C-alpha cells in the first residue's frame, strides 16, 4: 500500500532532521531532569536523585525564651521528611554553613525577638537561602511567615491583656516571665500547626507515592508527544504543499485518501516513537518506574498517540499554512500543558484550574500515567483511554476530510 510508503518516508524525514530530533527527544529528557530534580522538594517522597530532604541551619540568637519555641517549630515531626534542622548559636555560623553548601537554607531568630514580641512590636524571623535552592528557601520562608503571622495574631489578642493586668495590679512585673511562658506554649501549638499546614500543602500533589521524576517523565512524554506530532507530523502536510512535493504527489496515480492516510499513519508512528523513546530513556537513566502493568502502559501509549495525532491533523487542517499551524500548535500545547499540570503540579494551581485540567489532553493523559505508576488497577485507565481515543479519532476524521478535499 502506498500510504505505508508515505508514512515510512515521513518517519525517515523526521529521523534525518537533527534539529527536530534535538527538540523532541533531548528537550523533554532535559526538562524531566530539571523539573524532576528542582521541584523534587514539592513532592512527599523525593527520590534519591534529589538526595532526600535538605539541611536547615537554625540560629537562635534570642535572649528571651520565645525564640527557643520558634526554633522548635522547625523540629516538628511532620517536617522531618522535608528538612533536617541543625541548631547553631549564631547567625555567622549559620551563614557560613550555607556558604560551604552544608545547608541550603538558614533561619535566624534575632537577639531582640522575645523582647519585641512582649512589647507588642513587630518581630521578624530572617530566612537565608543558597541561590541554588530557591524553592527550598521559599518553603522555609512560608513556614516562618506562618509562625510570625500567628504570633502577631496572638500578640494583639494577649499583649493588651498582659499590659492591662500589669497596670491594674493583677500581675506584678516579676510575673511577666511566667506570662511569656504561657504565651510561648500557645505559640508552639500554633507554630506546629503552621508547619503542618505547610507540609500538607507540599505533599498533597501530584499524587501519593509518585516521585517528581515519575511525574515529570510522564508529563514531558505527553507534552512532547503532542509537540512531535504537531511539528514534524501533520504539519509536514502543509510544508509539502509549500515545497511542491504535495502537488507532485497529486500528479501521480496515488489516490488522495492514500496521501492523507499516509500522513495520518506517519504522524501516529511519530507519536509512538516519541512515547516509547521517552519511557525507555527515563526508565533507564532516571530509573523512573512506569508501573507494573505493561498492558495498561501499552494501552495508554496507543491512546495518547492516537489523540495527539488527531489533534495534530486537525490543527494542520484548520491552518492556512505551516507558520499558522506552528503558532496554533504552540498556543495549544502551552495552554494544555499549563492547565493540564505538565509544567507545575496541579497542587500549586487554584481549585478551578484543577477541575479544568481534567478536561485537557495533558491533564487526562498525565493522570492516567500517574495511575499506572501508582499501581492502580487497569480499570482506572479505561475511561481516560477511551476518551483520548474517541477524541483523537474524531479530530483525525474531521481533519483528514478537510485535508483530502
Amino acid at each position: 500500500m502506498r500510504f505505508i510508503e508515505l508514512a515510512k518516508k515521513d518517519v525517515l524525514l523526521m529521523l534525518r532532521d537533527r534539529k527536530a530530533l534535538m527538540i523532541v527527544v533531548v528537550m523533554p529528557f532535559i526538562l524531566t531532569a530539571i523539573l524532576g530534580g528542582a521541584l523534587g522538594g514539592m513532592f512527599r517522597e523525593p527520590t534519591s536523585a534529589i538526595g532526600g530532604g535538605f539541611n536547615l541551619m537554625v540560629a537562635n540568637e534570642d535572649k528571651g525564651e520565645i525564640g527557643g519555641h520558634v526554633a522548635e517549630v522547625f523540629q516538628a515531626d511532620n517536617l522531618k521528611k522535608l528538612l533536617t534542622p541543625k541548631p547553631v548559636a549564631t547567625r555567622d555560623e549559620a551563614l557560613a554553613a550555607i556558604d560551604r553548601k552544608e545547608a541550603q537554607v538558614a533561619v535566624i531568630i534575632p537577639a531582640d525577638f522575645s523582647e519585641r514580641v512582649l512589647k507588642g512590636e513587630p518581630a521578624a524571623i530572617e530566612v537565608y537561602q543558597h541561590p541554588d535552592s530557591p524553592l527550598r528557601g521559599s518553603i522555609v520562608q512560608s513556614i516562618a511567615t506562618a509562625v510570625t503571622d500567628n504570633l502577631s495574631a496572638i500578640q494583639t489578642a494577649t499583649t493588651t491583656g498582659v499590659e492591662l493586668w500589669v497596670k491594674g495590679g493583677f500581675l506584678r512585673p516579676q510575673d511577666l516571665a511566667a506570662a511569656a511562658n504561657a504565651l510561648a506554649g500557645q505559640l508552639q501549638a500554633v507554630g506546629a500547626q503552621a508547619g503542618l499546614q505547610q507540609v500538607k500543602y507540599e505533599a498533597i500533589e501530584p499524587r501519593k507515592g509518585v516521585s517528581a521524576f515519575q511525574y515529570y517523565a510522564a508529563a514531558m512524554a505527553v507534552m512532547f508527544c503532542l509537540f512531535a506530532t504537531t511539528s514534524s507530523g501533520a504539519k509536514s502536510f502543509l510544508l509539502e504543499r509549500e515545497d511542491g512535493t504535495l502537488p507532485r504527489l497529486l500528479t501521480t496515480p496515488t489516490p488522495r485518501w492514500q496521501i492523507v492516510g499516509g500522513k495520518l499513519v506517519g504522524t501516529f508512528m511519530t507519536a509512538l516513537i516519541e512515547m516509547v523513546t521517552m519511557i525507555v530513556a527515563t526508565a533507564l537513566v532516571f530509573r523512573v518506574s512506569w508501573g507494573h502493568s505493561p498492558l495498561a502502559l501499552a494501552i495508554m501509549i496507543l491512546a495518547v498517540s492516537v489523540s495527539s495525532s488527531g489533534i495534530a491533523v486537525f490543527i494542520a487542517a484548520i491552518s492556512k499554512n505551516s507558520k499558522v499551524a506552528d503558532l496554533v500548535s504552540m498556543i495549544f500545547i502551552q495552554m494544555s500543558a499549563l492547565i493540564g499540570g505538565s509544567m507545575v503540579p496541579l497542587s500549586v494551581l487554584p481549585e478551578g484550574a484543577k477541575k479544568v485540567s481534567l478536561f485537557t489532553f495533558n491533564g487526562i493523559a498525565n493522570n492516567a500515567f500517574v495511575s499506572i505508576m501508582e499501581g492502580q488497577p487497569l480499570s482506572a485507565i479505561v475511561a481516560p483511554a477511551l476518551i483520548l481515543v474517541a477524541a483523537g479519532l474524531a479530530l483525525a476524521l474531521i481533519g483528514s476530510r478537510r485535508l483530502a478535499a
Partner: protein
Amino acid sequence: MSILEVKGLTKSYDGHPAVAGIDLEIKDGEVFGLLGPNGAGKSTTISMISGLVKPSAGSIRIGGVDIFQDPLASRRLIGVVPQDIALYPTLTARENLAFWGHMYGQSGADLRKRVDEVLELVGLADRANQRIDKYSGGMKRRINIGAGLMHRPKLLLMDEPTVGIDPQSRNHILDTVKELNRQGTSVLYTSHYMEEVEVLCDRIAIMDLGQVMACGSLNELRLLVGDKDVITIQANVPEAKTMDDLRAIPGVDGVSKDDGHLRVVAPYGRKVLGDIVTRLAADGVKVRSIDIKEPDLEGVFLHLTGKALRD
C-alpha cells in the same frame, strides 16, 4: 495518433485569463516546445494538463483518455517535472527516486532496477547515496527529472527544466531529453530559452499573454517572418545619399539605421553583400563589421508580439 489533445483550454484568476482558450496537439513520439516569456501561461498550462489546476473551460485528453473522467489512468501515462524542484532534501538520490517509484505503484526488484537505470540516465549513479541537499543546483534538477521518469511515462511534461543551472548540467539535460525521445517518450518542453527549443523540438508553440501566437515546426515559424536575411553592418553612419544608393541595389528590400548600425533586409543576403560593400566603399563609409542572420525564434517572437522574448 496524438498523445495529448487540448481544446479551448482556459484558466482565469479573478477574471484575469492566465491561459485564454488554447488548442494544442502533441503527436506520439514528438518533442513539443512551449516557448514564451515570464507569465505567458506555460506553467498554468502544464498544471492543468497534469491535473493540479482545474481549468475554467476546455478539454484535455491524454492518450485518448479524458483526464477528468479517468484521472488515475491519465496520470499513469504522464511524468511531471515541476519548474521548482519538488524532492525531499534530506533523502538521498536513491531514496527520492525509490519513493517516487512507489508512488507510481512500483516495488521490489523492478523498482530497484529502475532506480539504477534512471540514475544512469541522469548521470548521477556515482552520487546515488548522497543526500540531495548536498547536491549542486544542476544535480538536483537532474534528479528532479529522474523522479518523473520512474514509471516510463508515455508523455513527459517538463516545466523549464534548465532554469538557473550550469552549462554542463544543461547539456546533460538536453541530451537526456533527446535520449528519452529516442526511446519513444513524447515530451512537452517548456522554456523561455529559444536555443533549447530550437535544438530539441519537432514542433513549437509560441505563447504570450495566455494565448498561442503561432504553432508549427521551426521552419514553418520562420516563414512567418518571411524567408529574409537580415544584414547588420557596423559603420560610421552614412549620409542620406548613401542610404538611397543602398536601396537602389537590386535585391535589397529595405534599409534602416540607428546609432552605429545599418540594417539591410534582403531575401538572399549573401548575393547582394558584395554590391553593398562596394557601394559603401565608393561613398567613403568605413565598415567595422558585417553580420548576416537567418530569422530565428527571437525574430519570430519579435515579429509576432513586437517585443523581445527575454528582457
